[in-house]
């Protein structure tokens, strides 16, 4: 059996667990705990080790999706998770501009660990106060060639689109070699 993995990363509460849950064929093996920090208590639980989802491609190939822990104190997990990944998705909560700087830091860190292809998703586009993706591109200082995809992690088509765009980028990278 061959296995490949993709990493889903992003700031705290950006929707990583939901993203994986939406397309995983197994219940996400979530390692969630109640939040202890007051400043991060905008939701009840958070991922403390990693989320883990699976998509069986055929008898011979399985794609694993790993979600990184959202809280800053688990940063040490990132390097381990990024090893051997096919590419990564950076989730950004479009309605919380206060997390954009953190999203940029995470993106830069992952690019340094492994310069593999990646896409950035402007998640929670269904919320009323979500920023427009093109405004987010400026705020996140993303170059024009970086794929910034509008996304709603609860919507399967939206998640599929993000994964497909990442796979197209991987294919393009291979063809340019």
């Amino acid at each position, binding site marked *: 059996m*061959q*296995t*490949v993995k993709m990493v889903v990363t992003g700031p705290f509460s950006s929707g990583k667990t939901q993203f994986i849950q939406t*397309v995983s064929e197994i219940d996400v093996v979530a390692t969630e705990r109640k939040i202890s920090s007051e400043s991060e208590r905008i939701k009840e639980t958070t991922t403390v080790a990693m989320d883990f989802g699976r*998509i*069986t*491609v*055929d008898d011979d*190939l399985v*794609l694993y999706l790993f979600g990184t822990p959202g809280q800053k104190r688990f940063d040490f997990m990132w390097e381990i998770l990024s090893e*051997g*990944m*096919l*590419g990564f998705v950076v989730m950004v909560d479009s309605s919380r501009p206060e997390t954009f*700087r953190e999203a940029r*830091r995470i993106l*830069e860190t992952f690019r340094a660990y*492994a*310069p*593999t*292809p990646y896409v950035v998703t402007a998640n929670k586009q269904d919320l009323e106060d979500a920023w427009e993706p093109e405004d987010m591109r400026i705020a996140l200082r993303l170059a024009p060639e970086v794929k910034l995809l509008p996304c709603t992690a609860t919507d*399967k088509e939206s998640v*599929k689109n993000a*994964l*497909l765009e990442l*796979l*197209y980028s*991987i*294919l393009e*990278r*291979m*063809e340019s*070699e």
Partner: protein
Amino acid sequence: MALKGNLRDFSFSQLLNLISLAKKTGTLQVHGPEKAASISFDAGKLSYAQNSKKDHGLAAVLLRSEKLTDKQYQVIKEKANNIGDKELGLMLINSNYVTQDEILSSLKNEFVSTANDLFSWEEGIFHFENNLKPAADKISLLISLENIIIEGSRQLQEMERLQDELPSLDMALKFTDNPGTNIRNVNLSVKEWRVVSFINPKNSMKQIAKTTKLDDYEFRRIVYSLIQAGLVEIIRPEGVAPPTPKVPTLPVEGADEQKSLVNRLITRIRSL
């Protein structure tokens, strides 16, 4: 009991707070990995400060605060190099080069800036020598520490933010291709103009900071404001190769097999 230790364990703001509350008189010597500083206090107030990386003579201080020209500074260095600061100050006032207020405000800025710099030191062996005062020929002041502690802590927070925004000074800067913007119409300070004049894809930010002799905090602050104003953008310096893009790790070898594997993934995701 000697007051000594490492800034790693006892921060500079904690030290200043202690000196202020205990109204100590003496000199704090700090030896960091790259530079050293010496700060004197009189009854809990800052009286003198010097940094090992800078010429701390009065003429150099007045040159840095632009109260003396390069030429005037050179003349003083050649003809009055052996004169103490107090005597030199009197000579400069009497010959109408500078006023007393200009000397005092320049020294105050210099001492406060030296103290502020210490807030960013993460490491440094310190030692407080009780009752050790600056040399007799030096001009001492009395500056309250409360504002320095508040301002230093604020700058430290801002520095952390600036380091997040500009994590590496190895990159270069270029003017943005924004046809509506003419930098000549923008109000810039002298220091900002100095930075702007060196912006070129060939110069790394580190080189510009060194050439303009701006400290890390000030340089990052200027660059950050120019970026925020949309006047410049960060680019890779000319001649520096970008990191080689990595082909993702795949469990099969051979280009065709790898493409086939990715295509199988694409087909599967589409079918979800």
